[in-house]
């Protein structure tokens, strides 16, 4: 071994004794710890549990102010207002009925309300505060605060609540907020403790929902000392949260207000976008509703009224509504044919009023026929037979490919709820979907925007903007976030021969400005403001996704419901396009008679930035336009500022 025999027996014995002693000390200490644990966790657990539940120092979360939303000119679209409310805690109140009676001398409460509240309080836990009244006035709030000594258990509280100062004008764009529901908690994987705050509001639909993370902000916290009854005695420390991001939309509120007012109570929708950069200037669905109703708690009767209305005010038709585009689709077919080289713009096709394909007759809308048509004339007079012929030459797949390049049949990434994809059908799609082969009749239907083709007003607006600008513009809704511009790189040029686009634009010009154009009645006479467009009248009702699942085959098989949808797409000015509009009036009748005049008014308002001078309209129409204006109520955001209580 390596060592001297110094490790004698004596040493070992000594270490053994001291080691044992050390072990005993350690064992004793462990026993003390165990006993202490037992005493705290078993003998006195209840006391500590009580202390923990009624912990005299409580952390209260401070809900952050939700991010404000403005329009492109800085008008407030969604703000926050102080919400004064009064709560009662039964345990502290003692005689609830007596306290309530005293409270009723200070704030307005009907007998029925008081009875309901009394019954409700008795049912609830005695220690949780119960909200007696919300949105009480500042005067009522201060009256209660002053009389606090006479009102045991009653607490006046102040919180922030979302408010939409523009009411229904942007209901579908902004959506609305509501208290977090159990459904929300189950659906979203979001550990943010803010969501656990009772009555905390989160976005339910629209931008409020899609931009929830940005708008919500970060919670602050404060440490308060509370008494055993849970009433706050004093605030110990406070850390403010970060308010949510402020958003600026591309929407021009004045225009939006005008468009909404112009659509009125029709079941209709309109989208106006800037063809140069895709900014959505206005996007309105009618009829609309007041989103503030949802924030404040909508009554079931009102909700039922909205939900059962056959004009579907709750639906956002601009992005969710899918319609057969009707003749507005003819630009797509024409561009596909031009690109495939199967037609020359000057070439004429004779329209006898119908064409027979595969043993079936396909009619032109004009039974007598149009005679010889070239490309420009075919658009101008919306000849169906010309396009029946074209479609057979070019085939459905090329048409649908062109549709997608123009922005149809694809989901545009806007922060709105349930943005629909639409449909630009192909042979492979039908085979996959229905297990049946594509037939030539399908092509003929599709080519005039019927049959399987489905588009949303947003997509039609994008299509028009792309045709007008020659660029693959993408729509966008958020202009800046916390004052920082959202970058909008210039859209790449469409990979379409500019000469073809010029031919199409000439055709759309003719639709409005040529004497035989289908929308000639809606022409603009002001120089440099002239409009080009295309009418559409689609002969089927709005096909829901469910119906498509069920297997709608051809237009003829569909049940006929009331009147046609009226569509119109347009851009202006013709010489240097600035804005594009797409408009759909459900069951409105003909596109030229119903949709075109509305679209003209909206485009002119966008171009002038205000109501256009009457001189922009053809002379014969000015009196009628004036009359119609007299009946319309518009909001001037400069004269009607949002309520004073609205704040950041």
């Amino acid at each position, binding site marked *: 071994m390596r060592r001297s025999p110094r490790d004698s027996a004596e040493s070992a014995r000594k270490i053994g004794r001291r080691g044992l002693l050390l072990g005993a000390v350690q064992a004793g200490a462990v026993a003390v710890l165990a006993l202490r644990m037992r005493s705290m966790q078993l003998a006195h657990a209840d006391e500590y*549990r009580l202390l923990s539940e009624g912990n005299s120092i409580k952390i209260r979360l401070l809900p952050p102010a939700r991010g404000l939303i403005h329009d492109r000119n800085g008008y407030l679209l969604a703000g926050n207002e102080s919400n004064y409310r009064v709560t009662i805690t039964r345990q502290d109140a003692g005689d609830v009925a007596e306290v309530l009676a005293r409270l009723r001398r200070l704030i307005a409460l009907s007998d029925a309300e008081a009875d309901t509240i009394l019954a409700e309080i008795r049912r609830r836990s005695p220690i949780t505060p119960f909200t007696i009244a919300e949105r009480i006035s500042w005067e009522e709030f201060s009256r209660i605060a002053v009389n606090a000594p006479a009102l045991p258990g009653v607490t006046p509280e102040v919180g922030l609540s979302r408010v939409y100062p523009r009411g229904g004008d942007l209901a579908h764009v902004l959506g609305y907020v509501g208290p977090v529901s159990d459904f929300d908690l189950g659906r979203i994987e979001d550990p943010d403790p803010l969501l656990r705050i009772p009555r905390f509001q989160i976005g339910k639909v629209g931008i409020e929902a899609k931009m929830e993370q940005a708008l919500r902000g970060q919670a602050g916290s404060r440490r308060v000392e509370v008494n055993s009854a849970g009433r706050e005695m004093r605030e110990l420390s406070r850390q403010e949260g970060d308010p949510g991001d402020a958003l600026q939309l591309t929407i021009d509120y004045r225009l939006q207000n005008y468009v909404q007012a112009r659509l009125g109570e029709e079941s209709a929708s309109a989208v106006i976008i800037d063809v140069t950069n895709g900014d959505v200037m206005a996007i309105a669905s009618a009829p609309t509703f007041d989103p503030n109703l949802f924030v404040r708690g909508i009554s079931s009767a009102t909700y039922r009224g909205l939900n059962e209305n056959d004009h579907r005010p709750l639906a956002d038709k601009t992005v969710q509504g899918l319609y057969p585009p009707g003749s507005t689709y003819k630009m797509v077919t024409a561009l596909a044919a031009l690109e495939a080289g199967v037609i020359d713009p000057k070439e004429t096709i004779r329209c006898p009023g119908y064409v027979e394909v595969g043993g079936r007759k396909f009619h032109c809308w004009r039974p007598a026929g149009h005679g010889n048509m070239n490309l420009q004339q075919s658009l101008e007079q919306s000849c169906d037979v010309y396009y029946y012929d074209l479609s057979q030459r070019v085939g459905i797949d090329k048409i649908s490919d062109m549709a997608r390049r123009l922005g149809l049949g694809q989901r545009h990434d806007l922060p709105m709820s349930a943005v629909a994809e639409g449909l630009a059908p192909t042979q492979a799609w039908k085979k996959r979907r229905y297990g049946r082969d594509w037939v030539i009749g399908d092509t003929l239907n599709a080519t005039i925007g019927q049959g399987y083709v489905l588009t949303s007003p947003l997509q039609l607006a994008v299509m028009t903007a792309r045709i007008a600008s020659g660029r693959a513009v993408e729509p966008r809704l958020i202009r800046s976030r916390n004052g920082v511009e959202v970058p909008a790189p210039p859209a790449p040029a469409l990979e379409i021969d500019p000469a073809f686009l010029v031919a199409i634009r000439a055709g759309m010009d003719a639709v409005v400005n040529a004497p035989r154009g289908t929308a000639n009645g809606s022409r603009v006479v002001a120089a440099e403001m002239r409009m080009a467009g295309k009418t559409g009248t689609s002969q089927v009702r709005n096909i829901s996704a469910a119906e498509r699942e069920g297997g709608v085959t051809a237009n003829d098989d569909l049940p006929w419901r009331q009147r046609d949808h009226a569509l119109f797409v347009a851009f202006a000015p013709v010489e240097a396009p600035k804005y594009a509009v797409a408009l759909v009036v459900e069951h409105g009748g003909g596109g030229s008679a119903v949709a075109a005049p509305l679209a003209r008014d909206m485009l002119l308002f966008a171009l002038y930035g205000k109501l256009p001078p009457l001189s922009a309209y053809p002379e014969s129409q000015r009196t009628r336009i004036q009359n119609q204006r007299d009946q319309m109520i518009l909001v001037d955001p400069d004269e009607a500022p949002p309520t004073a209580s609205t704040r950041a």
Partner: protein
Amino acid sequence: MSLLDYGLRSPPTGIRKVLYINWPLVVLLSAIACVGFLMLYSVAGGRIEVWAEPQMKRFGAGMAGMFVIAMVPIWLWRNLSALAYGFALLLLIAVDLFGDVGMGAQRWLELGPLRLQPSEVMKIALVMALAAYYDWLDIRRTSRLIWVAIPAVLILVPTALVLAQPDLGTALMLVMGGGLVMFAAGVSLWYFGTLAALGVAAVAAVLQSRGTSWQLLRDYQYRRVDVFLDPASDPLGAGYNITQAQIALGSGGWAGRGFMQGTQSRLNFLPEKHTDFIFTTLAEEFGFVGGISLLTLYALVLAFCIHSALSNKDRYASLLTLGIGATFFLYFAVNMGMVMGLLPVVGVPLPLVSYGGTAMMILLMAFGLVQSAHVHRPR
């Protein structure tokens, strides 16, 4: 003794040593560390990457270090004891001169990617040095004044350096850890009696010096003492930690509130919830059952150390094992005593459970020494 020991005259050599490692101890240490991972996962609100994952990596590294150290013969470590002590002393001086200031104290030394707390190293180096000293010292001289003075200096020099940081908790740990080794080595009980008397006098002096020009401790250290004596005196300031910790612990009850259900820690009532106060979360979420289980694991580690030390005929190995066991004991006893309100708040982590790099790795390496002593015991 396992079956393999039968008939062996000398310690095992080569790879066969692995078979002589005390595997139950490895399992115990791993079990304790797993409790730590679980609690770190819980206090991070169910996220593993915040604390649990780095802790696991360090545990892996520490375990590797433990095995390497265990394979090296214990007599080599004995010969390196003085060197280790000197190295640790240099580190302590370095940290006083160049160390990082964290939480009002200079404790950390940045060595490349490593963030080292030299006082942790010193705890083990001191035990090694004292064990080597008593191994060398003629046993009859153990209680002579001059031969007691030498180890006292060995203890007090690093203690003074640690106090200068200032880190009262670690300084006390060094004194007590060193004292326990001297006790085990057989130093006369008279010395300990005298020391205890002097200690009482020193405490009196420290308390007396408060507010005078020769004040011995920092203000925050006095406040901790006040708070220990009466936590209710300042429930929101200095007493806040201890009050909240006790509420968390006590409210756990028999079986606790359940994993990840502790309201005290979840709602951020608890300070330092991932380091010094992690035991409160365990006690709140797993209750008495959980707390006692962890305490039992710790007690079993101690029992192993004492058994191994007493059955080892090598004096250095015995003293080292006892000393490391005692240091380990001081860690968890002081930490638990603190959160249970039995001791004043001093910054001592819960060994192998609290989040913290150096403490865990050094402790595992120390157990490597214990294993080496066990593997290479004379037979």
